[in-house]
């Protein structure tokens, strides 16, 4: 494991991606909590209709305007409609007209149907929040693998046919932000399970191909506990193969064997990750179900690792 310097975690804009269900939002929430404790102004940015941070922090629903979800931690959701109005306002300078444009039924149909509109307004919103010096770090909870790659490809895709004009400016400023190693980092979150590891290695290789992106950390979440040492595991196997068969405690031994296998799989997965991915790594243990405990546990671990 690389010694975590925490350097990439101090950049202003942090993107997080990884396979679905690996606990991206939880890691993000923990980092935000640690940043707030260190006196910073963290802002969690979520995309789309589903919000995790309000569940994680047991706070009221997060909306388009940043709201405080925990002491010192703010969150916002990039909702399509207000983000679109914000983008149009930035071009027309007059919000009432922008609202009319966004509500024009023909244009609405176009905006809802045209590929890329969500990605553009999202990039614009992130850049807008980044320009507002109030926030730092800004932690963006991207969608999982495939769609995150599409997101990072967008500036390149659009640049092909946007020679000039306002959208070109959005694309250029987004590309500049993404390419700035002083301001931006992309982190990958995973769990030590075979499917997730395969996808993570693929994702990492794909991100590496995009040379203007700057990768930060690999977070390995939910590492199962090692309950028993090697000798104890051997004893368990031995007992299950002979003396303990049919005994009332046999189910407990079978469970111990199962959990040992899970841990073995996890060790193998982590070795595979280290072999193929040369990013500084931070690993977190599996936590009991209960988001407050998870966030507290993770943010303690992050502070111990030296991120201030």
């Amino acid at each position, binding site marked *: 494991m690389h010694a975590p310097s925490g350097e990439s975690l101090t950049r202003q804009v942090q993107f997080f991606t990884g396979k679905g269900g690996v606990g991206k939002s939880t890691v993000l929430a923990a980092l935000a909590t640690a940043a707030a404790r260190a006196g910073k102004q963290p802002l969690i940015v979520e995309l789309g209709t589903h919000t995790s941070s309000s569940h994680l922090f047991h706070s009221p629903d997060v909306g388009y305007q940043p709201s405080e979800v925990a002491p010192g931690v703010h969150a916002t959701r990039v909702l399509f409609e207000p983000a679109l109005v914000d983008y149009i306002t930035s071009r027309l300078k007059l919000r009432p007209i922008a609202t009319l444009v966004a509500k024009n039924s023909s244009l609405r149909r176009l905006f809802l149907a045209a590929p890329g509109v969500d990605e553009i307004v999202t990039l614009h919103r992130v850049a807008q929040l980044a320009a507002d010096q109030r926030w730092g770090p800004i932690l963006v909870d991207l969608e*999982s693998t495939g769609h995150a790659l599409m997101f990072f490809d967008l500036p390149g895709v659009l640049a092909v046919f946007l020679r000039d004009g306002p959208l070109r400016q959005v694309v250029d400023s987004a590309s500049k932000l993404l390419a700035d190693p002083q301001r931006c980092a992309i982190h990958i979150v995973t769990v030590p399970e075979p499917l997730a590891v395969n996808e993570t290695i693929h994702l990492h290789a794909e991100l590496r191909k995009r040379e203007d992106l700057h990768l930060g950390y690999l977070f390995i979440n939910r590492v199962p506990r090692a309950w028993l040492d090697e000798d104890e595991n051997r004893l368990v196997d031995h007992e299950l193969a002979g003396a303990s068969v049919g005994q009332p405690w046999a189910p407990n031994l079978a469970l111990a064997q199962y959990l040992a296998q899970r841990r073995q799989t996890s060790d193998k997965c982590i070795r595979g990750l280290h072999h193929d991915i040369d990013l500084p790594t931070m690993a977190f243990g599996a936590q009991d179900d209960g988001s407050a405990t998870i966030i507290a546990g993770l943010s303690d671990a992050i502070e111990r690792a030296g991120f201030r």
Partner: protein
Amino acid sequence: MIALSDDCRLAFCVGVGGVGKTTFAAALGLGEALRGKSVLVLTADPARRLADALGIHGLSDQASDVPLPRTSDAGERPEGELHAAMLETKASADEIIRRAAHDEARAQRVLDNRIYQAFSNTLARSHAYAAMERVHEAVHDARYDLVVVDTPPAQSSIEILDAPARLVSFLDQRVVRWFLQASDESPQLRGGAIAQRLLRIVAGESLVSALSEFLSEMAFLREGFSARAKDVRELMRSTSTSFVLVSSADALGLEAATSVAAEVRSRDFELAQVVFNRAFIPEAARLGADPLVYPERLAALAPKLERMRALVSAEEDQKRSNIAAFCDEQGVGAWSLPEARRPLGDPSALAAWMQQARLVSPST
């Protein structure tokens, strides 16, 4: 056993990412094939897991045959068939254009269009449109009795559900027309001309011009595309279409499941089944409720074994009560599937896993 109704022709597996949706879609398709249907499992997930789950190498836009496991000791083969394909947006989109154009030169002009090229390869919405076309084609393919669609995670799965309606709304209306013949003279088009001028301000001249050019190249596709989008939209509401919600059983998973269920219902789609994956560990089923007395030789191990038992039992109880609460709140039954001991990587393993499903009924 988790099964779809006999008249089901199309099933969408929906849910947030990382809950085992692709694996479940593979297992569901396999189960139906073993019941005698000819099934196509179509994954719309940009990440390629379906091939792994089915133990086949490489999956493409063209359907591959998946060998079914023998159903009896005598080595009998089941009657059904299982096929799998992965949606490749660009390949599907190119195919759609070629089919619709009826003319090589015309097709080539669209395929060469830079807007088409930029968008057919990337972006969630392009993906959703191509998926919709592929689903339409598969459902009307006489080789298949049933099409199982594995949708991409969360946000994008909703994107797929909304794609037909959005496209119909866009193509049916004046929007396209004022791109093609914007004019201030016709009063009918005046609103459109104003809108287009505003669009030029917010999106830029070059994009609007490129878009107009693209839409006129695409004009011949419009009717067919719109008709198919309407078809798919109707198909999604038909009684022969089922939505299967797949979720994890932890607290965050439940929150997500509740919101996806609401998304499905708000579109008037029928939620046919709910499946909680990794809802239990089979090994935990035989754990007792109380601490045990161990023989002397296990004395050193005993406290650790007891801690494991207590922790795992508590986790299992928590998941069980999460699922029960979901069923009561939604008034639906649900299936629990166990955590698989090893990654599921072939049809026999998938079938064995599905056999372990347990039904949970709402208490009222």
